[in-house]
């Protein structure tokens, strides 16, 4: 697109935008080729001071920070989907204060207008009767949800959030390309972008002093409280997400954490007595306000689309009874139909008595005879779009052949009200940093208007999405791709610099819910189990690879046989047949680490850990999330060169990161119910592993002497043993260290003691009998261990005899404990439509 800059000393010489075939578009930076617009000069001067290398280093910082923060966008692909890293350009879009003032007024007017139109269309429909809105725009529109008719919004506020996609056209004005009225995406990503830039280029931010945006989080939180139906001073506010497979799930978790909202999926909520409740470990807790990210049609399978269970059955009835406020009101997606655009100027004059401030591309709705004729006659100059959602991609008749064109004309003729023709827009370009160069690329600006309880206010910033290769700026614009922060210049720029403007901390928001939804507890429990299981596998594999690496001569292979036997009993490698086979052992171990195939191999577990953690990421600290993200990068494919060397490096790194994760969890997590479940998962998993390991040791017969040391190694208790016994490990000493020693955090006794403590803390909730049975089960495990200790005291041979059966029994009861926990606390059985 552009060649290298001709000014080597200046990082930001910049290139003029390309000449387009249809004349020039507006350029954000250059009024004449290579002449920066005056209000952008400050930005360039400031960036120039960083120097070319400095700028590239900052860009790399930003990229790494986003990766470590785990800012992602879920992208569906043909297999299942993948979390793509969020991309942020270092160069913000700068908007002058005067220009912003105008834009702000236009956006507030538009939000107010759309809110009034919604109130009428979901109310008395005078606008239809009086001819301001043609009947088909409503009645033929699949986004018009009849069950929501007369479902009054609290304080007549249908839009808690309104968002517009803006494009700047050749005349330099901002045009509204699309109205987002149901559950606009991007506010959280915009906040995150600002937080990252304020750390990556603080000096530039100090130089320009953009208006702060993070205060908007407080506005949002206060407004949500304001909309509570008011039975309590401390309302429970839930963010309803479609789940981790939604492209914007990161944002849902991020906003929940920052705003102190309870992040829920449809299954976490239930309607009883025409009220909305969240299922927590403590039983049902009333929900007052729902900030929803589930689309209109999926909000209530009972009254809306029954083929999806992302929503909550009975939600509309609860709203109808006035017991819950849903923002935005269900049904508000109606105004996302682009067919409304040509009617907004008339509606604005009629409802507000003023002219519409923000223009849109000229739009002709084919449901009107004259407009239909115009579209047919000017087809090749226009873009043709579906009038109603879901709005697929637009078609550009100019790009069609004759057959395609006449097919389109015929489709329009058959149901004209389903189509609009729209003027083609050339988007303005903004500078984008690629490597050491500056490119110029078209973009769309998304801005956010929040209702603060009294009025609409505009967030002084936004989210820019850069379009590759000259997109038309029409929806759907994918979330994935390069983004930019938006800096709005303060009024009367050049006043005294703000202290620490560069690194403004996020506002602290109090009142995060301590209630743990059952689903979150379920995921935390499995996060504990999977991370522990991964550690076991990694330790076992690391030790075994060490052994096969050292032992090459036939004589020392006598060690490998028993080792393979133990690992075989633990299900980690294939059990040895007759003689030990070093090659197959190595292959099994490498496969355990690198292949996707073995269920519960390293890569599979990393995937499971990621999924469990992703589902509760609103409850994990940023640092914990960093670590979990780093873990994921270890799941690289099998290295080429020296597999054994590379593998032990991978395994060392995994052991260290897993240790860091458990340290983080021990030191940083509040000891609430969430932690109890995470730790119970870890303890149960470790106890099962030790029990099965010792069972394998006990059953190894004549190889006994060869397996006690590996057992100590795998269970990470070599040091403990050495401190206590100054001899070579024997079965009796190993049994003491790994089974009975309650002071060894790796012993069975230690795990059981922890489980007893946790069991006492379990919430009784609504199922006291079930919880009672759980405690009994833990007691039985404890008894079993006690009997073993008493029987074996001073009698090594009895202990050795009892070891396998005792361990087998304990492992079985632990598995039963895990199942009972699931049944008592996590059985969020899904709903079905009948």
């Amino acid at each position, binding site marked *: 697109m552009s060649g290298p800059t001709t000014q080597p000393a200046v990082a930001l010489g910049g290139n003029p935008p390309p000449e387009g075939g249809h004349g020039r578009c507006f350029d954000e930076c250059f009024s004449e080729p290579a002449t920066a617009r005056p209000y952008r000069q400050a930005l360039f001067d400031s960036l120039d001071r960083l120097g070319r290398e400095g700028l590239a280093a900052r860009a790399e910082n930003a990229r790494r920070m986003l990766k470590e923060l785990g800012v992602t966008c879920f992208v569906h692909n043909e297999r299942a989907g993948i979390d793509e890293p969020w991309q942020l350009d270092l160069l913000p879009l700068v908007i002058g204060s005067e220009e912003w003032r105008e834009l702000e007024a236009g956006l507030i007017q538009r939000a107010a207008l759309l809110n009034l139109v919604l109130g009428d269309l979901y109310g008395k429909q005078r606008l*239809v*009767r*009086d*001819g301001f809105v043609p*009947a*088909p725009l409503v*009645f*033929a529109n699949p986004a018009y949800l*009849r*069950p929501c*008719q*007369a479902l009054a919004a609290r304080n007549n506020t249908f839009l808690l959030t309104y968002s517009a996609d803006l494009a700047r056209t050749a005349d330099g004005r901002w045009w509204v390309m699309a109205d987002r009225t149901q559950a606009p995406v991007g506010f959280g990503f915009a906040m995150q972008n600002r937080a990252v830039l304020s750390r990556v280029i603080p000096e530039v931010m100090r130089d320009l002093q953009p208006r702060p945006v993070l205060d908007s989080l407080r506005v949002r939180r206060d407004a949500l409280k304001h909309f509570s139906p008011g039975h309590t001073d401390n309302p429970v506010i839930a963010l309803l997400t479609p789940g981790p497979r939604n492209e914007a799930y990161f944002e849902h978790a991020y906003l929940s954490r920052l705003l102190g909202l309870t992040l829920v999926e449809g299954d976490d909520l*239930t*309607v*009883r*007595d*025409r009220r909305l409740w969240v299922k927590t470990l403590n039983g049902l807790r009333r929900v007052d306000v729902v900030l929803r990210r589930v689309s209109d049609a999926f909000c209530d*399978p*009972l*009254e809306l689309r*029954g083929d999806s269970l992302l929503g909550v*059955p*009975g939600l509309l*009835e609860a709203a*109808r*009874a006035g017991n819950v406020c849903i923002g935005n009101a269900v049904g508000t997606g109606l105004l996302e139909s682009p067919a409304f655009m040509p009617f907004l100027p008339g509606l604005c004059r009629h409802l507000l008595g003023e002219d519409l401030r923000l223009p849109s591309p000229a739009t002709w709705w084919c449901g009107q005879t004259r407009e239909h004729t115009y579209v047919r006659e000017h087809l090749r100059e226009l873009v043709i779009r579906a009038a109603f959602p879901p709005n697929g991609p637009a078609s550009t008749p100019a790009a069609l052949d004759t057959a395609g064109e006449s097919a389109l004309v015929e489709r329009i003729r*058959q*149901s004209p*009200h389903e189509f609009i023709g729209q003027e083609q827009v050339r988007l303005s370009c903004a500078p984008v940093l690629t490597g050491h160069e500056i490119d110029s690329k078209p973009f769309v600006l998304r801005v956010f208007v929040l209702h603060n309880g009294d009025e609409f206010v505009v967030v002084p910033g936004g989210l820019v999405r850069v379009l590759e290769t000259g997109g038309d700026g029409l929806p759907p614009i994918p979330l994935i791709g390069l983004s930019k922060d938006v800096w709005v210049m303060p009024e009367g720029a050049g006043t005294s610099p703000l202290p620490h403007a560069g690194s403004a901390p996020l506002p602290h928001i109090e009142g995060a819910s301590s209630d743990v939804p059952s689903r979150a507890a379920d995921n935390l429990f499995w996060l504990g189990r999977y991370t522990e299981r991964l550690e076991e596998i990694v330790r076992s594999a690391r030790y075994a690879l060490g052994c096969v690496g050292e032992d090459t001569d036939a004589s020392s292979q006598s060690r490998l046989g028993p080792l393979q036997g133990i690992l075989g009993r633990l299900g980690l490698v294939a059990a040895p047949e007759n003689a030990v086979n070093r090659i197959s052992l190595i292959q099994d171990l490498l496969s355990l680490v690198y292949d996707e195939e073995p269920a519960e191999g390293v890569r599979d577990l990393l995937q499971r850990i990621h999924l469990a953690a992703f589902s509760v990421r609103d409850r994990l600290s940023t640092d914990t999330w960093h670590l979990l993200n780093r873990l994921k990068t270890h799941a690289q494919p099998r290295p080429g060169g020296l597999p054994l060397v590379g593998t032990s490096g991978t395994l060392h790194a995994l052991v260290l990161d897993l240790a860091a994760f458990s340290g983080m969890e021990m030191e940083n997590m509040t000891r609430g119910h969430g932690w109890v479940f995470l730790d119970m998962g870890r303890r149960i998993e470790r106890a099962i592993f030790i029990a099965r390991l010792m069972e394998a040791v006990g059953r190894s017969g004549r190889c006994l002497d060869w397996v006690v040391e590996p057992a100590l190694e795998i269970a990470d208790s070599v040091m403990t043993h050495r401190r206590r016994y100054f001899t070579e490990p024997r079965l009796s000493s190993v049994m003491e260290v790994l089974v009975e020693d309650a002071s060894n955090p790796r012993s069975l006794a230690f795990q059981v003691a922890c489980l007893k403590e946790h069991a006492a803390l379990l919430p009784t909730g609504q199922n006291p009998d079930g919880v009672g049975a759980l405690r009994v089960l833990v007691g039985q495990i404890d008894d079993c261990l006690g009997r073993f200790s008493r029987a074996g005291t001073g009698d090594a041979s009895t202990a050795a005899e009892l070891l396998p059966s005792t361990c087998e029994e304990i492992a079985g009861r632990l598995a039963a404990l895990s199942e009972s926990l699931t049944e008592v606390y996590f059985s969020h*059985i*899904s*709903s*079905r*439509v*009948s």
Partner: protein
Amino acid sequence: MKAQLFQLTHATTYHYQSPVTVSHHVLRVTPRRLPRQFRLEHRIDTLPVPATLSHRTDYYGNEVAFITIEGAHRQFTVTSQARVAVGPAFIPEPAETPAWEIVRGLCGYDRSSAVLEATEFTFASPSVPLDPVFADYASASFVPGRCILEAALDLTARIHTDFTFDAAATHVATPVLEVLGNRRGVCQDFAHFALACLRSLGLPARYVSGYLETIPPPGQPRLAGADASHAWVSLFCPGIGWIDLDPTNNCLPSMRHITTAWGRDYTDVSPIRGVLIGSGDHTLSVAVDVIPLGVTEIPQRAEPS
């Protein structure tokens, strides 16, 4: 006005394979009050007893009951009982009704409330897509300039002749294009097909759900629970109002049809829709009785339909 009095019972039972902890149901089983339909009594009973039972009218003025059952249950029975008197329908002389093109032309221009309300029923709806194949089928009846009711009666008669009533051929979600292909179905399919024909021509037509008194074969007694809920269509004719047409029975509904609800298609008015929380499958049994209790006199009401 002379009216036929009916005792109506509609019992639906769900048997769940495993216990259900919570279930929500939306019911549209209450006969509407209409100028020629008099509702003397109506009640809804459920077993288990509901934790929540609330009533409202929906977008189309149909009466809706919202029911929540809480606590583990393996069976759910809901019984709707009503006593209804139905007077004769006013049926205009077909040859005196306006040409069908006039009706089509009116929708979309006239914003008087009756026509505007009817215009809503000219568009595609979830179960009734519009397609030139439906317009093609209908055009044999709707020849240019023909009086709308004459044409509509001809269409109803053709559907009755061309299509076979076959309860095994379709299920509640069979697409209407498939019904056209197989030429088989039940009342719901015939109604959807008739609507697709009428709307593909640009005419306003709505789906009506209700009950039909069945007459046992000569010499045989009426079997209890043998009746069924029924569906037909209603066509808007400016200056006259809505005229019911029953394509399944090729007749103009009058004193044997009890109207419960109307909407764009079945999805707007299904008698029972529920969401349950629990696992396992369920089976459903339905018993309907429409028992005639003789002719009675009802006062004429002025409320518009």
